[in-house]
């Protein structure tokens, strides 16, 4: 390495470390606020170090909102949508990627065209439709409309095309396996890494969604975590440390899920963007 190159590398790391500091500071600050008392936060100069009131603040959150109820509701919705999306999307992707059938290209083009439609366009009529079904306020409103999606099918199809060898499918056919059996024995095992990405992606999106649950979960005793957190802020907004304790509690499980598969998740996401 020449001195000039070494200097460039060092400058690069300094820039990156500064960026990391900006990227992570709000999390640190969330912990600082959640672990101090509100008067301490409001003092000038403010407290910049982690305090000792974290559990006290968390306790206040649990006293004021049904935190675990909301978390359970959000968990049920996220897991249900994820499982359904993984099944329906991979099944459809398997059919699109590996089989010839009349109208296949047209139907796939139709599926791609649905990408263009922004979710907000159908916000009002979707709400009206679900109201007709009597689903407003129920978990069905959170789970069923999102049980299969164009993005996942598109993404899994790209994955399946390259990953599943045609010979394996022919071999399964010779063995007398029907389509669904071929999906189970040949498709699913090969698609597993792709499913891991789509699963994490879906889970995070449902867990963090705010606008849709805000509109459809009208029963104040059955709110998703994000809406409950927003409400905690709306009612007890002046008690910063309690609100931040709530924010921290809502964020930790998700970051946990993300960190489990972070490495390959990020790589898969970038690879997916390159395919567009």
């Amino acid at each position: 390495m020449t001195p000039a190159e070494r200097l460039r590398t060092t400058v690069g790391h300094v820039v990156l470390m500064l960026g990391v500091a900006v990227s992570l500071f709000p999390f640190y600050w969330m912990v600082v606020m959640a672990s101090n008392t509100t008067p301490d936060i409001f003092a000038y100069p403010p407290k910049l170090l982690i305090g000792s009131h974290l559990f006290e603040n968390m306790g206040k959150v649990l006293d004021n909102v049904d935190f675990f109820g909301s978390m359970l509701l959000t968990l049920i919705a996220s897991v249900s949508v994820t499982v359904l999306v993984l099944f329906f999307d991979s099944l459809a992707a398997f059919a699109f990627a590996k089989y010839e059938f009349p109208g296949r290209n047209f139907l796939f083009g139709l599926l791609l065209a649905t990408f263009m439609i922004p979710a907000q366009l159908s916000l009002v009529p979707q709400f009206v439709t679900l109201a007709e079904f009597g689903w407003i306020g129920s978990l069905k409103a959170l789970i069923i409309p999102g049980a299969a999606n164009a993005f996942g099918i598109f993404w899994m199809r790209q994955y399946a095309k390259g990953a599943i060898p045609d010979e394996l499918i022919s071999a399964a056919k010779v063995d007398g396996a029907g389509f669904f059996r071929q999906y189970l024995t040949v498709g699913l095992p090969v698609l597993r890494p792709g499913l891991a990405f789509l699963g994490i992606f879906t889970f995070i999106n449902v867990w963090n969604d705010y606008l849709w649950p805000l509109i459809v979960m009208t029963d104040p005793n059955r709110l998703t975590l994000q809406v409950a957190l927003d409400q905690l802020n709306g009612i007890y907004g002046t008690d910063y440390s309690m609100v931040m304790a709530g924010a921290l509690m809502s964020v930790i499980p998700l970051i946990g899920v993300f960190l489990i598969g972070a490495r390959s998740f990020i790589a898969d996401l970038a690879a997916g963007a390159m395919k567009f």
Partner: protein
Amino acid sequence: MAVTKTIPVTAAVREETAEKPPNRFRQAFPQYAAISPFFILFAVFGAFPILFSIWISFHSWDGIGAMKFVGFEQYSYLLGDPKFWQAIGNTMIIWVLSTVPMLLLALVIANALHNATRFRTFYRIAYFIPNVTSVVAVTLVFGSIFSNNFGLLNAFLQSIGLGKVEWLTQPWGIKIAIATIVTWRWVGYNAIIFLAGLQAISADVYEAAKVDGASPRQTFWRITVPMLRPVILFTAVTSTIGGLQIFTESRVLFGDTNNIGGPGDAGMTIVSYLYQSAFIKNQFGYGAAIGWALFILIVLFSIINWRLIGGNDSERLTSRAKRRADRKIAVQKGAAK
């Protein structure tokens, strides 16, 4: 018409008789069943609501009582509604304030990541975490940082001898606060996408530039940026679509007050206005009309992006993009039949 129609039909018949199976459609039943969940759900929760929303937008309706047909009145009111134009203006300003620094910073970070050989996994995860964290929680943290009286930012400004800024009451302060949250959440995401684009550029090109004596800056502007065009287009289109739909940041910062989006409606976005009209004021017809205006804006801006970054010189399109374009044309032709 009759002539053109008979030819494909006979061709299809011949094809069918040539292949032995009695009915290709019936034979493909499992495949149709496999793809049907998406299409059924889309028909019920996508296509039908969208058609229905055209119908709703021609009515005055509170969501419960009788629908009153008003023709194009919602749309003509929309075009003359100063609040709607303010919402568009706010959204545009927030979008520019967030997208420009976001993409520039992402490019710088991606470049540094590309050259870094150590701590790569750590960097990627650290940069990506903001994007997977809930907007609500993030907005609460930033709301406290930007707080007028007790915020960290004002405490910092005071400590270096500058005065306080009323971030959450001034029109520009509000927009800067929202744009900061958006930028913070999406810089890392876009950097990761840019990085993938950088890694796809063959090392030979850089080797050749080095041999020709190009400076790092020349290499960056003459090779890296042009070769990244498809990736830049992707990030520009997704940031535009996302930017036009900003809602949560403003809603969590300011709640359901009379002025949605803070004092003077300064943080009211298009989606905030849609949400307020439909779900707070129960003007469903008007909400549906705003939804259509938003859709038109998104299509318009996507076309502009495509033209500016990806378009006009077709030889620059990658072969993949060309193939996709061809496929699209083929699909359109198929649909026209």
